[in-house]
């Protein structure tokens, strides 16, 4: 299982890498989450890794936010539904 609690002194950069997205997605137990946080305070490189990954993840929904449904597609669906009896 991915979420195996570890002692802080055993927690190294490779462990931080394994837990990267589980941590950012809030999927870790308190013990493992604390181990990650402790490591990030002590390791500037891993802290940068996490910061970069978090920033990229935050930008993904923004990148797709302006996608619109074309009026033609909406009308096409309504037409198909009305053929089925939809009264809206």
């Amino acid at each position, binding site marked *: 299982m991915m979420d195996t609690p570890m002692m802080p002194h055993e927690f190294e950069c490779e462990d931080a890498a394994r837990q990267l*997205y589980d941590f950012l*997605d809030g999927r870790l137990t308190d013990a493992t989450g604390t181990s990650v946080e402790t490591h990030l305070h002590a390791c500037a490189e891993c802290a940068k890794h996490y910061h970069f990954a978090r*920033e990229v*993840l935050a930008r993904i929904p923004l990148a*797709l936010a302006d996608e619109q449904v074309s009026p033609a597609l909406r009308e096409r669906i309504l037409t198909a539904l009305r053929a089925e009896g939809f009264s*809206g």
Partner: protein
Amino acid sequence: MSTPTPRDAAFDEAVLAALPHVVRFARSMARDEALADDIVQETYLRAYRAWETFRPGADARRWLFTIARNVFLRGREREARAVDTSGDDAELESLAATSGIADAQRDGIDALLDRIDVAPAIRRALEALPEVYRSTAVLVDVEGASYDEAAEILGIPVGTVRSRLFRARRLLQESLFTYARDAGIVRDAGTGREANG
């Protein structure tokens, strides 16, 4: 236009309101926009016919995503079975991701996010992902589905959702790095070429 029946008014409120999300999810599965539109239309027809089976108060988006996924898979059942998921190993992916991020940081991509609009690069990178990774990333990272919800919609184990996300996100970060390198914004690690930006 006549007043909608109570049934259709409820359908309109719960289901038609989710149209932008269904379109986005359909496009995450089908690169071809015309095919995505076909999936959306078929999804809505199936939803309308099965509206009586929808539990009031349930998550309409999740229901529609599941229908859309089934429509998509039925249309390409053979291809779906042939997808190679041998790389769905989360631990391996996490280590690969570490390497990729380390390379990117060494070459200055960390500053990229603050210096340019990365939205076009993210959209291109998502479009370039294999379907299994793209649809998982869109469900979780765009639509906000939990791992469990994504697993149910996609019909795969939660562990596979996790490993596909790892790979999708890694590929996305690699694409951003390539974008930055090609734009001369970060140093080319292979040649030592200096950044322009």
